[in-house]
Each structure stands twice: as structure tokens, then as C-alpha cells.
């Protein structure tokens, strides 16, 4: 087994454990490369099926290509596709692009708040109808008690402290200083009523591992990651007002792998194109405690 096989086996084991232990479980899919690898790993774990609903938090400031890619794949792979949003904030234009709040507050409102209330079932969930390809309001309002997320430990400091199974309390808070122990592939799968668990199957993967795996498995990835001829590509995907492409001429997966291994990005942090990180003094800690992924 090479290290990709090992990472895959570990992630599949975690996904199966999560599926076994949690009745109301969902997987967050940002349509970025990490959560798409996660989705692929679910197909590995469940032999081509995806018996877990996928939840996307739509800020409505996502690059339009992202939404098209999401819906195309959802139809093709017959995914139970759900999205949630902060309808109120969008209606009142309380967003950074509208000029009414700063970047951090915008993230908090359109992502953290929307996520929190979508997971709890308090705000409407919209589910894809595979007959029409349209989204209709989902009748299921049950709280998700297990949430699978594609964070990686190498992304930034606070994520390097996560567990594979990481409890969140009733307020969605993450108590970093008192986390459960986790050893010998035994995870925290018992949880008190009202709390929920975040599950992180990709914790040990690096950005390079992700691309190596995408290459090996031939996973369909949105074109935004590739140079379309103007010498620019996205290294990390987010909302268009806060995410800038990087200068790179990588046109396909193997060129990206090479670029990460020995090229210009081998020493530059992945999220350097994300403006909100800088506003928070270089750490995602504040957002993370609020439930941001």
C-alpha cells in the first residue's frame, strides 16, 4: 500500500463508522476539491452509492461555474443534494459585497449562521428534485447530529488540532482545550442529547495528497482550478468578491501536482488567496469557533 492507499483506507473506515453510528447524518459539499474528494471517498466506502445527503451552503456569491458543476454532478451521481442559505441577510443586503458589513461578519452571516440553522433544520432546506433538476423545499426538518466535513490538518493552525470525530456542544461551540481522546481507530461516537459531532475523514491529507488522488482516481473537478489560457487559476474556491485567482499556468491535474511538489507553490500557503483570513490576524480561529468550516 502506498500512502494514498493508506489515506483512502483510513477515510473510508471513518466514513463507514460515521454512517453506522449516526442516524441523521449529512456531508458538507462546498464543491471545492477537498469535499469533492470526500464525496468520491463516500462512493468508495459505499461501493458507488452515496447514502448520505450532501449539504451545500449557498452564499449566492459563489462563482456561477461552481453551482453548475454542483448540479451537474448531483444529477449524474444521483446525489441527495440539499442547499441552505441566509435568506434574511441576502434579502436585506447585509453582506460585504453590498458594502454593508466587513468580510468577517459577512462570512459569519452567510456561511456560519446559514450552516448552523440549516443543520439544525430551523431554516429551510432546499432539495434537488431529480425529475426536473430544480430545488424544492425539503420536508425533512430533523437536526443533523453527524456532519461530515472535508477539513485538512495542514490548512492552517486551528485545523491541525481537530479530531476525526469532534464534538460540538449545543451552541455549536468547539471546546479546543477539552477534546476527547482518540486512539487505535476508536472514535467518539457517543454523544449527549443536543450536541452533534463533526466528522473529518480528510484530516491527515495534504493539499498535495488531494491532487495526487484526484489524478489517480480521475475525479471530475471544476475547471476553475485550471488555467483557461489567461495565466490565472483558482487554488482555493470561495465567494468571488473575496477569492482571487493565483498566477499559474497549470492546465490540468498533473501540472498542478508538479507545481505543488517542486514549483512555485511548494512553499506558499493554500489559502493565501482568501481575503478573510488576513482580516482575522492570520487565523481562522474566530470563524472556526462559530462553526465555519
Amino acid at each position, binding site marked *: 500500500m502506498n500512502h494514498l492507499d493508506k489515506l483512502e483506507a483510513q477515510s473510508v473506515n471513518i466514513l463507514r463508522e460515521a454512517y453506522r453510528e449516526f442516524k441523521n447524518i449529512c456531508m458538507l459539499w462546498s464543491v471545492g476539491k477537498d469535499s469533492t474528494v470526500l464525496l468520491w471517498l463516500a*462512493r468508495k466506502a459505499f461501493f458507488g452509492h452515496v447514502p448520505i445527503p450532501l449539504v451545500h451552503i449557498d452564499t449566492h456569491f459563489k462563482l456561477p461555474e461552481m453551482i453548475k458543476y454542483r448540479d451537474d454532478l448531483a444529477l449524474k451521481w444521483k446525489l441527495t443534494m440539499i442547499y441552505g442559505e441566509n435568506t434574511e441577510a441576502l434579502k436585506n443586503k447585509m453582506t460585504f459585497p453590498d458594502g454593508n458589513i466587513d468580510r468577517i461578519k459577512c462570512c459569519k452571516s452567510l456561511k456560519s449562521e446559514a450552516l448552523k440553522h440549516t443543520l439544525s433544520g430551523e431554516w429551510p432546506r432546499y432539495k434537488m428534485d431529480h425529475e426536473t433538476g430544480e430545488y424544492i423545499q425539503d420536508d425533512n426538518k430533523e437536526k443533523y447530529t453527524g456532519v461530515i466535513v472535508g477539513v485538512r490538518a495542514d490548512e492552517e493552525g486551528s485545523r491541525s488540532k481537530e479530531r476525526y470525530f469532534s464534538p460540538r456542544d449545543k451552541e455549536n461551540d468547539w471546546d479546543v482545550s477539552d477534546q476527547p481522546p*482518540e486512539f487505535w481507530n476508536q472514535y467518539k461516537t457517543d454523544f449527549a442529547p443536543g450536541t452533534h459531532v463533526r466528522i473529518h475523514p480528510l484530516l491527515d491529507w495534504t493539499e498535495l495528497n488531494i491532487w495526487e488522488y484526484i489524478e489517480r482516481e480521475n475525479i471530475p473537478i471544476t475547471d476553475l482550478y485550471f488555467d483557461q489560457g489567461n495565466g490565472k487559476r483558482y487554488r482555493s474556491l470561495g465567494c468571488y468578491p473575496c477569492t482571487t485567482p493565483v498566477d499559474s499556468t497549470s492546465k490540468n491535474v498533473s501540472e498542478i501536482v508538479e507545481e505543488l511538489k517542486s514549483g512555485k507553490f511548494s512553499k506558499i500557503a493554500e489559502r493565501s488567496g482568501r481575503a478573510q483570513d488576513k482580516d482575522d490576524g492570520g487565523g481562522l480561529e474566530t470563524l472556526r469557533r462559530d462553526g465555519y468550516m
Partner: protein
Amino acid sequence: MNLKEQMNIVIVGHVDHGKSTVIGRLLADTGSLPDGKLESVKEYCRNNSRPFEYAFLLDALKDEQAQGITIDTARCFFKTNKRDYIIIDAPGHIEFLKNMVTGASRAEAALLVIDAKEGIRENSKRHGHILSMLGVKQVVVLVNKMDLIDYDQEKFQKITSEFSEFLSKIHIKPINYIPISAFNGDNIVSSSKNIPWYKGMDVLRQLDSLKNKKKNYGQPLRLPVQDIYKFTANGDDRRIVVGTILSGKIKVGDEVVFLPSYKKSTVKSIEGFNVPKRDTAYAEEATGITLSKQIYINPGELLVKANEKLPEVSSCFRANIFWVGKAPLVKDKQYKLKIGSTKIPVKLLEIINIIDAAELNIDSYKDQVERHDVAECIFETGKPIAFDIISDIEQTGRFVIVDNYDISGGGIIIGSESRHDNSLLKHVNEREYLWSNSLVSQDEKSAKYGHKSKLIIITSGSEGKEKSVENIAKQIERKLFDLNFKAYYLGISSLLAGLVSEDSIGYRDRLEHIRQLGEVARLFTDSGQILISPIYNLDDYEVDKLKVLNQPNEILVFNLGETPFNNFKPIANFNEGNALDIVLEVLKGQEVIEYYL
């Protein structure tokens, strides 16, 4: 694709002995930091009027910077030409032992850091002890802060000989002792001129010399059944048994046994997604198989090969454990044991001794295992489980204990125990001793009601017969009721909805349901009634449990279709057509309803 080898290394040791500085140095001196990181940390230090330290590179979390100690395991990545490393920084403070355990259990090798000036401290030893229990065999000791003792060779040797003596008692033979100063960068990525008397490897070369664990393909197959999938979408009709192989290999055509049920079948195929068709799967793979003969099995069983050494199957075992729970481990309290994919109630039967993890003194006087203690104990599970002795197969000799909702301890099994005075029997004896008998005797009750009291269980091992056993049990109640007998049907769902609250830990636990049914049956049969209950797929252990709990009254088990039992023989087998007749016949034969005839 050219893929490099990867290795997880944990760094442990007493608080303030310089673990984070060692890692900071390794990252900086191998050029593994992102551009600008070193500068930004230096600037942070300037802005906060603190002298720069390499340790700050790791202190990514704000509250950690405030406290100045590592509280949780952080992972960082660096690479050499040989391989990519994940370095796990484990906290040295005693309060955070559970985090140290979390980090160390993921590692192939450990760097144990000792402060040359302060010498060996409590957690230098405690961490050594835990490493040994966790099964981390490759240990390199770094004697740090050599600059503070003027790179003195004698003082270095005194520390190494003292520590070697301790480690030998817990069966650890360190690969090397390296004198370093992480602060000055001595012997980290190159040999130090300050320590000319040391001729061995620097830390970096030492790391590259470590070996990734050999795959245990050669050992007997151990595959804990994590789940059984039948996804019917798109016409998929496969019934796939899934799990991660802990040791050995599995091949199409292998005759396999599931334990503890002892059910047998043959491997029909190895399943996968987006992989070429194969007929063998190996240790560490998260795999899935289909079986030639369909049998009903539950997640939590251990799949092994019939022609290889079988694991132990017992409800009682002896183990060394370490405890990190908030509350102490006490006797007569129900915990949950997780071993392989099994999750089962467990009780502490006996404490053999408690070992001071740091001093290795034995303290036999304590009657509970407190936080951060290491102890040798005897445990009893709710029903037999399959396991191996740690020296035979490591992966199936390890378990964790859940208290309330948290993993609170870990252990390694050092022996199987056979005890007759198990806690269930003890409980029943106590219960019967305390039983308050009424003025009406059993004989009077049966004379008046016209029948004896009985617990009747309807079961089946055939797939998809859950509803049938329920219907048959209900029809028997109807029939007996119409014949004027005092019969009562009790479904498990009624029991659950009433007796168990959803908050209780045992809610999803089948064994707990069986226990409750047993206790309820004791009350019903004592009242002189015939209690009828359907339990789909009852097994040998469960029927045994019901028998014991229903004492002194009796139990009759009827089976529909395929038997779910391995050894136990039901009083009668029937099909859906003749069920009622056969039950009545047996009841007459057993003289349960003799007075009526």
C-alpha cells in the same frame, strides 16, 4: 506517479523540556515552512515584546499562545529526500495526557525529549510507559538543552543510563540517545561542533533511519465487521460485508467464521469501487466482501478464517489499562467497551493492582482506578466477545472504554479468564435473595388459572422474518387468550417505549433490551402468566441470559425457519402454517396447560 513514503512521528516528554522547539527547529532548518511564516512569527514576537522562540511556530492557537504550553496534539508536515513526515506534537502537561495518547497512538515512532538540566521527570517516565502500552516500539530519546549543561558528556551519560534502566522495565529499548540543543540547533539537521564527543546520527538522519511497520499479512486474518450493506438503488443486489482488515489477508473461496456467533460461510467476491477486479484483500485495507451462503450476521462480529488460529472467545479477560476519564473507573458500574467493531457493555470485576506509571510502584490498596493511573484489571462483558492476546495479534488485543459519552481509558488484553461466578448470576442470586414472596404460591396460581407460567420466545434466523415472528407471537397470545389462559404478548418496541428513556445510554443496545425483557419476564412469570415475546435472530448468549434472568421460572424457545443458534436447540421448529398447532402441542406435552385437558 512517483509517490513518496510517509511516516507519522510523535514527540513526547515532560512539560517545558522543549518539544515544540525541536519541531520548530526541524521545520525551519529543513526549509519546510511556508514563505513568510518565520518572519510573521518573529514580527508577532516583536509586537508583543517577547523574545522569539521556535516553539511559537507551532502555537497556532490563540489560547495556547496565551498559556505558553501545548495543550493538544498539533500536526505539522515536513519532508526529507527519503520521505514525508507528519510530526505530532503531544502536550507534556499531565492535564493533557488524553491528548498525548491521541497523538502517540497514530505514530510509527516517538521522539522522547528530556531536559538535560532538569533531568528525568515524572512525565518523561509516564509517557515512556504509555508509549509501551500503545505499541509504539521505535523510541529515540533526545537529551535537549545541552547548552545549559555546557555540552557535558558525563551528565548526558548519567541521564541515559538512568533512563535506560527505567525503560527496560517497561520493555522499551530506545534506538538511540541524541544530545541536542534545539535552541541553538545542535545535532538537529547536522552534526554539532559543540558536541564533538557524540559520533552518532543527528535527529534528521535518525528519523530517516526509522522503519515503517511491516505489514502483518502473514498473521491470521482478523476482519471486524463494521457493517453490512445492501444498497438497492440502480438494481444493485449485492449484500456486502464491510470492514477494515486488521491483520492477514482474505481471498475469494476462503472458508470464514464469524465470531462470537460461530456462523460460517465462504467468500464469494472482494468488492470495490473504481478498482480493477481482484480476488485478495490485505491488512489495512478498508474492504468489502460478499458471501456464497447468505447468513444473518450483525456488525460487531469478528471475521476470521476457519483454517487459521482462532481468537479467544470469552466474556472475561485480564488487561492492562490506562485511565484518562474525568471520573474514576469503579466496580459495578456499566461502561461500554469498544474493541474492533464491537461495542458492548462491560464491567470492572477486579483490580489486580494499580501501577504508578511514573515510578512503577504497585499500589494494591486502591479500590478504583483514578485519572492518569495505569492498572491491571479483570473485566467482564455483557456477552462473549472475540479478541486476541496482545502478544499474539496487537490490533485485536486493544480496546477502549467509554464512560458516559467519552472514551475514558484504553487497554491491552494480556489474558483470557474463565470465571463461573459471573456478574449476571451474582445479580440473579442477590435478586432472588431479596425477592419478596407473596402469600399466593405458584401452585395456587397455576391451579386457579389452569396453566403453569412460562416465558415463550418466538425467534427466527431466516432473513426478512422480523414481521413474521411478531405476527406468530401475537396469534399465540390470541389463541391462548381465547382458550381462557392468562397470556400476554410483549413486543420489544413496547418495552423500549415504556421502560427506557431515549436519554439513557443503553437505548440502542440490544443486550440491554434482552436484559430488560429478562427482568420483566421474571415479574410476569411470577404472576403466573404466560409471557410471549418475539425476538428476531436470538443467539446462544442471549437465550442464556434470558434463562438466567427468568429464573426460577422457565423459558420455551420456538423457531421459525432457519435457526439463528449455533448450539442451542429450540424446543420446536415450525413454519408459518403450523406454528399455532405446534406451540399448543408443545405446551400440552410440557404440561404447561395440563389442567385444561
